[in-house]
């Protein structure tokens, strides 16, 4: 009855979703008229949305503050980079003999494999932190994120697995249904840019991630996660095996990160440990918190805003810089403006821009 009340006088939910989806599908076709740089910004925004949705499972649902989430992103990216580039065959001649055509892992294998391997890392990194909460957990996960990055940086000897700080290049472009997503498609006069194809792939993954995440939240597993977030002792008293449920949250969240990593590597064609710094982890946490912890639409909004804001501010920062006679550096100014925007948002909307609707806060009884 309550749901009928909230929806009365508004468009039905499915129509809103269909329109939103149609808009999202058509967006890059509009954006590419203004230049592919804009579509690329949209691509990055979607990538961050995917990461934020994944992190939201760990931080938003299960309440486990993870400051090392980028590690799972790195695991996915390196998995694809190593298994779909000439790096490994160049480093190990024996392997080159076994694979004369080079290593070219199919994206259809890479995506589930990355999800699985990242989930495994999620469990590995989650297991030692099970008794920790809040800030202590944050510090340990932060350390884990850094450990992964340091490993990637140094695993070029004794055996050259990651090529160290030089990174791995010439990564295969993503190929699906016989199409290389790195090549534009021309239909008569109209051409669809490569970045647009990547955009659609990312959009499909985001939609899938939203469905999976929503279904999880609205299930026995999701309720157990939220119970742990709200009160771990009471959750245990209800017979919830908090250890297993926490590990499951780490694994599920990490698998999203792994999938994002594969697309990132295939899209960029080159990755190096620099892309997986602590700053990235903090950005993803900021997206989840800014949008609305645990609320999917908010998380998506937060990720889109924080990913796109720096690019938009590029245009604001330019004139400001000119105004001060070039004394203010554009990059610094941009970071300052982002920080300022976040402080203002957190002051005005401490629960995020779009938190879970608060039915039941206007205490009324009877």
């Amino acid at each position: 009855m309550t749901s009928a009340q909230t929806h009365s006088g508004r468009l039905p939910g499915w129509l809103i979703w269909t329109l939103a989806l149609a808009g999202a599908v058509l967006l890059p076709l509009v954006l590419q008229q203004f230049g592919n740089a804009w579509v690329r910004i949209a691509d990055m925004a979607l990538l961050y949305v995917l990461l934020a949705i994944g992190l939201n499972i760990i931080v938003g649902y299960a309440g486990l503050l993870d400051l090392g989430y980028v590690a799972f992103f790195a695991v996915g990216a390196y998995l694809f980079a190593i298994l779909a580039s000439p790096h490994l065959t160049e480093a190990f001649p024996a392997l080159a003999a076994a694979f004369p055509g080079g290593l070219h892992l199919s994206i259809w294998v890479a995506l589930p494999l990355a999800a699985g391997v990242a989930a495994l890392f999620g469990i590995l990194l989650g297991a030692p932190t099970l008794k920790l909460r809040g800030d202590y957990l944050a510090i340990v996960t932060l350390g884990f994120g850094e450990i992964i990055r340091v490993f990637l940086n140094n695993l070029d000897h004794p055996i050259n697995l990651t090529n160290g700080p030089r990174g791995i290049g010439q990564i295969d472009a993503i190929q699906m249904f016989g199409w290389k997503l790195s090549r534009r498609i021309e239909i008569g006069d109209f051409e669809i840019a490569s970045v647009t194809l990547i955009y659609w792939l990312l959009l499909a993954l985001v939609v899938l991630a939203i469905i999976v995440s929503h279904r999880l939240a609205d299930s026995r597993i999701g309720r157990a996660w939220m119970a742990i977030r709200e009160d771990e002792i009471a959750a245990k008293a209800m017979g919830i095996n908090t250890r297993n449920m926490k590990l499951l949250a780490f694994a599920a969240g990490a698998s999203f990160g792994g999938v994002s990593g594969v697309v990132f590597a295939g899209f960029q064609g080159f990755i190096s440990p620099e892309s997986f710094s602590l700053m990235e982890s903090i950005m993803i946490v900021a997206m989840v918190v800014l949008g609305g912890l645990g609320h999917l639409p908010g998380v998506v909004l937060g990720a889109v805003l924080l990913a796109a804001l720096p690019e938009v501010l590029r245009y604001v920062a330019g004139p400001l810089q000119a105004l001060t006679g070039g004394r203010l550096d554009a990059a610094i100014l941009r970071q300052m403006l982002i920080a300022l925007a976040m402080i203002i948002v957190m002051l005005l909307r401490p629960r995020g821009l779009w938190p879970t609707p608060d039915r039941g806060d206007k205490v009324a009884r009877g």
Partner: protein
Amino acid sequence: MADAPILKVEGASKRFGGLQALDSVGLSVARGQIYGLIGPNGAGKTTFFNLITGLYVPDAGRFELQGRPYEPRAVHEVARAGIARTFQNIRLFGDMTALENVMVGRHLRTRAGIFGAVLRLPSCRREEREIAERAHALLDYVGIARLAAWRARTLSYGDQRRLEIARALATDPVLLALDEPAAGMNATEKQQLRGLIEKIRDDGRTLLLIEHDVKLVMRLCDRVTVLDYGRELAAGSPAEVQRDPRVIEAYLGTAGAH
């Protein structure tokens, strides 16, 4: 043939450093009883409660649940074994709705895994429907069905207590253990609580009540154990216990001391 007692404890002891918090305490709760455990502050009530709910490991003692040995090694196994509890200082899942709180209580009696949930398999949908129906029924049972969609933290104190009981009942317990349920309640709320506890007993459930409020315990319980300084002072029906000189002494002091 007599029914095995729901909970049987013999010689339960627990020592914290130099303090013998519990010294060889035993009790036997029969099916359908409301069993009261009372005593002055520091008598060992909470220690006893924590022993049977797996929070502490006993130094000695034999525990049986429905005639079977009972040794919980982890807190979450207690509910699985069949003991559900409420907390003295209410511990609800504050940001979840009243209905969701009770649905969490069904967790250990249901199966759906991560893949079932993601794929929405027919078996999982059926189970999910049953969980919701059961939770609604339980909210109705404790009299707060109208608050199903409200967040737990927005409920009044008395309603939160009811919600906690509904959540505990959702685990299908053989023994419902209430830790000072009347703490902080006014007279009206206490009376309503008494009605609810009696209703639960009359529906064939067994309850263990740890309570400070002697009057409430005496009115409500079928059998009572009185603890003092970690020892069992007296046990019996409320009327017997009330007449026991040792109990009077523990609560009111000796006549000679005045």
